[in-house]
């Protein structure tokens, strides 16, 4: 007969492997964020950028950046970029803004989530100021201009001539506030 203890040892090992894989499923969450950051997968842009050295402005090169604004699901706000597209030089600091209005009869809270295409460009778009880093609360009928300041890195690969920066606006009025991430990265 086979020793019972031999069976038990193997069961414990295999059950341990199963529990480990359960943990691995959850480990995929931070792992995914890291991989997205490295590869620019999903066009995720980084956190607030702090310019450390004076960047050289590449006057010889012009890049087009287009802005898109869309609402998620049944979000009722008017949301649009003030300019549809800009021609900019890599390295210079640019400023634009997005218009937003709450047409509803109640106070609402919103969070916008950015995405860049082509994905490869995501790592070269630095935002020194962005409304997506915070949430916006608007009372009924209130409107505002939300500022965006960004720099396109001089190292942007040569083949990229046009970038699209898209924002999706989410209604988070209903969500418990302490659990909503403070930044959208």
């Amino acid at each position: 007969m086979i020793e019972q203890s031999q069976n038990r040892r193997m069961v414990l090992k295999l059950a341990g492997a199963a529990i480990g894989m359960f943990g691995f499923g959850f480990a995929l969450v931070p792992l995914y964020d890291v991989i997205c950051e490295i590869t620019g997968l999903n066009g995720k842009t980084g956190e607030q950028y702090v310019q450390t050295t004076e960047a050289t402005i590449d006057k010889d090169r012009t890049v087009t950046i287009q802005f898109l604004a869309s609402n998620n699901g049944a979000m009722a706000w008017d949301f649009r970029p003030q300019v549809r597209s800009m021609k900019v030089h890599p390295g210079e600091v640019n400023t634009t803004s997005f218009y937003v209005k709450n047409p509803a009869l109640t106070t609402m809270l919103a969070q916008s989530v950015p995405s860049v295409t082509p994905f490869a460009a995501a790592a070269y778009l630095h935002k020194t100021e962005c409304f997506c880093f915070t949430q916006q609360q608007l009372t009924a009928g209130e409107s505002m201009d939300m500022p965006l300041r960004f720099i396109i890195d001089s190292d942007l690969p040569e083949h990229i001539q046009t970038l699209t920066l898209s924002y999706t606006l989410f209604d988070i009025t209903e969500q418990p506030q302490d659990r909503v991430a403070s930044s959208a990265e």
Partner: protein
Amino acid sequence: MSAIIEEHHHDDHHHGPAKGLMRWVFTTNHKDIGTLYLWFSFMMFLLGGTFALVIRAELFQPGLQLVAPEFFNQMTTMHGLIMVFGAVMPAFVGLANWLIPMMIGAPDMALPRMNNYSFWILPFAFTMLASTLLMEGGGPNFGWTFYAPLSTTYAPPSVTYFIFAVHLMGISSIMGSINVVVTILNLRAPGMTLMQMPLFVWTWLITAYLLIAVMPVLAGVVTMMLMDIHFGTSFFNAAGGGDPVLFQHVFWFFGHPEVYIMILPAFGIVSAIIPTFARKRLFGYASMVYATSSIAFLSFIVWGHHMFTVGMPLAGELYFMYATMLIAVPTGVKVFNWIATMWQGSMTFETPMLFAIAFVVLFTIGGLSGLMLSIAPADFQYQDTYFVVAHFHYVLVPGSIFSIMAAVYYWLPKWTGHMYDEKLGKTHFWLSFIGVNVTFFPQHFIGLAGMPRRIPDYALQFADYNMISSVGAFLFGFSQLLFLVIVIKCIKTGKQATAQVWEGAHGLEWTVPSPAPYHTFSTPDEVNLKEAHG
């Protein structure tokens, strides 16, 4: 041999099965539990099949005739879930229970009590899952892949029952797999090396490892859904800093190995049946083992091919495309080996062999359309069309399901001690073969022409092929009742089977009498290793 076992029984305080219904509730006998799994799987097969026929009835003509679109969505979802987790997987576990101990000369599974638990969890899990259809808001309606946020933000309230049911199925599968691994590694007859095991045992060993690796990931992903829905986390909610695409990555990290979990044991079954009826040894035994292992390894690193259109860097698309194509190599080795086994064999075409040959041919068709889908640029056209539906039904229905039917016909005489009716068996085969092809072959064409999957209504130009497909589905569906009749007839009135059953059969299970006694191989000296594999 039978005399030895009889004698042994009289000496021992142990005895045959207990009487009455409680035998099945408390049983720890691998043969009883195998039987329970197989009957349960067949019931689920009929339930999932009924849902499929609701779908096909609605799609018989364009327009909305029979069911509301909301209910149609629940049907596609439940059909997928029930067939994958309720029919195919438990059927393979049932076969593993019946056959693995007999094939390796073990007296039973290594952990008989846990074996009982793993089965008895399932009826509760599936009752819970099926009961969601009767709840307010209906059952799961987000597809069997339950992509977030459809399955979180926009899900019906019954989704919590769905999540709990998936947890239970996962626990059952993991316990079953641990049992299989421990049995195979610790309970082989003395002297039987790993490379002497029949291929069904090998493929199940590898499948069990796959299950242990990925079922917990599935449990993890439904747990994340549960937390998003009820505890305010934002794993898959973009507004809260999460990402719905993450769901797809985690799901398919489970999902791709899962589809191989549903086919590897089928490879083992076919590798047992073809040599028997070709009356030759299996060609390339070692290469079969290595090919199965390579397929299992590759299954972990190709999940991205389900997500080509979701958005991925070019390098990612190329990597997943080439890695996926690589799977065709070990699969090709297998198909080659089966054909080489038949080559110049003295073949006869009993029902199990017919199903096995149909498996080789039709699974290859399904594999080939899979290769087409793996081409990333072409996938943008095929994604979410009926071409995908045709592809995975070709590998699952005439693939997994045919192999299970082949296995039932092949080992039924051993289990019951009676031969099934060969003429009815062949009728069942031909009806199923024609039904499957009439159902799924036209779906390739409507898919390439652009008909999307999971919709209750469609454009007029798809009408003819859909009608053909529905006719085939009803033919296939109702032929399965014949299968039920054949099995019952075999148990009740079939003529006595010999121990060997098939002239060309090799393997330890054929050395015990038919029907296999309640306890087999209680002592190692009953094992004749020369018979271990064909």
